[in-house]
């Protein structure tokens, strides 16, 4: 029987996969191919957890259409609201029984804290925020960035018999599986029939496993039967991100900084809309209250890897560059010809963004007719 590579997938709660999870299945295929050896092949299992069976099932069907070989739904009332404590226990318990070769997470807000907690529970090794994979002398080398992106570190797992936990940076692996973001943030998944899946085959590939936190078997740090405590979610504040597009997976980002001001951000949003992109910001713009913290790109914000990064009025501090240096094409607009941002740019315009952006918006509209 084939060993499995598990992918932990997140949904929007209404039966759709989030775009980072749709990407993860494409990366899992690349990883499965790289890990393949003689008499060692891997199949891909989609892992979905929650309390709403129909929503999970609907997301599982999309995962199967997008490349998973089977899907496991971990279901229970305790999983109605995400918590690292219960989710890591639920996945850990299943993993101890079924012993997959590896469990992959996308480095989302949840994945970033769930994966290491699970790794500790299984006493497994983990690599976080992985961006690429190579193979040397039959050994898999996982690549991640350190020191604010200035170093690439290749890491291997020393314990071949243990489950391996890997979290992967959205947009990495050469943009594999990048989902085109529609203006409303929804992502398109392939048609199940393109994989030759009919209703019967699809339903046969989905299994459901019950979970209750009460009968935990322990794991590292816990004696068997010891109750698992989780924090209580009291309130979800209104989404600071006022747009549906996820920065971490966006193909196009238009960002503003100190030189932008509230008026500049109106132009930045207009350009982002025109390019079906997301809006980003530097620390100064967030601190001045021109835009919410959710849009912050940099050391204390989010790391982005879009195909196109247009920045306006951002001088280019070390902390900001950490978050955007892996963008494929960087276009900078800044009044100061000596701004550090120009050193990490493919293209730049020295000028006032309040004049340059309207001209750029007009030019793109004109070009598109």
């Amino acid at each position, binding site marked *: 029987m084939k060993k499995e590579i598990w992918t932990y997938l997140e949904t929007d709660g209404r039966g759709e996969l989030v775009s980072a999870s749709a990407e993860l299945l494409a990366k899992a295929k690349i990883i499965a191919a790289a890990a393949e050896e003689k008499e060692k092949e891997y199949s891909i299992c989609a892992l979905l957890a929650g309390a709403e069976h129909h929503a999970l099932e609907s997301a599982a069907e999309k995962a199967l259409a997008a490349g998973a070989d089977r899907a496991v739904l971990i279901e229970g009332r305790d999983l109605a609201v995400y918590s690292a404590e219960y989710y890591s226990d639920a996945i850990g318990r299943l993993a101890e029984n079924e012993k997959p070769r590896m469990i992959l997470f996308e480095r989302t807000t949840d994945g970033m804290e*769930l994966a290491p907690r699970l790794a500790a529970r299984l006493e497994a*090794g983990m690599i976080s925020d992985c961006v690429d994979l190579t193979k040397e002398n039959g050994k898999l080398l996982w690549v991640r960035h350190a020191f604010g992106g200035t170093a690439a570190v290749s890491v291997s797992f020393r314990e071949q018999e243990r489950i391996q936990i890997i979290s992967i940076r959205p947009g990495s692996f050469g943009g594999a599986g990048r989902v085109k973001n529609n203006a409303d943030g929804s992502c398109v998944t392939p048609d199940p029939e393109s994989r030759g899946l009919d209703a019967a085959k699809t339903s046969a590939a989905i299994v459901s496993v019950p979970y209750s936190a009460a009968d935990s078997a322990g794991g590292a740090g816990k004696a068997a039967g010891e109750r698992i405590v989780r924090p209580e979610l009291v309130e979800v504040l209104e989404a600071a991100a006022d747009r549906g597009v996820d920065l971490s997976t966006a193909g196009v980002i238009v960002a503003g900084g100190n030189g932008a001001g509230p008026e500049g951000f109106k132009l930045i949003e207009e350009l982002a809309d025109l390019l079906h992109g997301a809006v980003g910001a530097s620390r100064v713009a967030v601190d001045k209250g021109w835009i919410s913290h959710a849009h912050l790109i940099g050391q204390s914000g989010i790391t982005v890897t879009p195909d196109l990064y247009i920045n306006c009025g951002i001088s280019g501090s070390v902390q900001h560059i950490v978050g955007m*240096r892996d963008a494929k094409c960087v276009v900078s607009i800044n009044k100061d010809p000596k701004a550090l941002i120009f050193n990490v740019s493919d293209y730049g315009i020295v000028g006032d963004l309040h004049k340059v952006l309207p001209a750029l918006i007009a030019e793109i509209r004109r070009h598109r007719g």
Partner: protein
Amino acid sequence: MNIIVCVKQTPEAGKGEMNPGTGTVLRTDRKQVINPFDLYAMEAALRVQEKEPDTRIIALSMGPASAASVLRDCIGLGAETGYLVSDPAFAGSDVRGTAQVLARAVRVIEKREGIRADAVFCGAKTVDGGTSMLGPELAQFLGVPQVTYALHCSPQKSKDLQESQGMQDSPDLQESQDPQESQKLQGSEGLQQMPEGTRTNGTFLRVEKEDDRGNRIYCIPAPCLVTFTKASFQVRYPMIARILEAESMELPVLSAEDITAEDPAGDSLSEKNPVAAGPEAAAMQVEAVQLRKLDKQSQIIEDPDPVKAVTALAQRLFSEGIL
């Protein structure tokens, strides 16, 4: 409330380098400072202390003898003392090993100080390795709940905001104090169960976690672990008198023997948590380190007429299929 703040010595921002041969951090000629994210954790602990003056704050670090300097930084800011876990046997530990050692160290501190660690605070990530793994791994090895990437927190006597005295004077959380709103959420499905047992300690933290889908407010019972990211407030400056005091303080150092031999809390921690520290026991092996240089052509257009500049830029972007 007793808070243990975990801190790490890291190279100053933007100046870190690694030894390309061994993958170890070159520490010799770089200024070593406290990891900036750990300062946010320290600041959060001090803010808890402002609200609950009997709060004890103890700093904890693992590293070479020189790492004692970051513990002294914490004392300068207001920590009571600092424990350094330092042993050649622990050098080269991976995150799993480090988390296991720190979990034991927390138990040793509890025993020696005669306290229970109600909360362990960490930075959400480090500026060198930047894995963000330590906090959640440590929480699991301690067997406590976690909130990661917190912006700020406030102590609470009860999990119910209205019963709590501690929150009334919290300016940080004004926006989330609508009692109807939080009651409504507490009553909604899946959120209402907080088993009775969690009330026995009478101590909770109300934490705002950063989340791009909308920040979340959690109520987390002690003992717990919280990791902090940069909040909107400034981190305070150390007090001169405390800095001088810290210079002459003798800080306790925990060796591998202290960590592994003691059965710290008299519980079965040693059984539950074997320590796999040092390079030989590590799960991960660094194979290579390469510096990543940005190779950008930087075609910069300087034209006083913005329309001409944009036309020149747009032509290139259109022709290369970027736009």
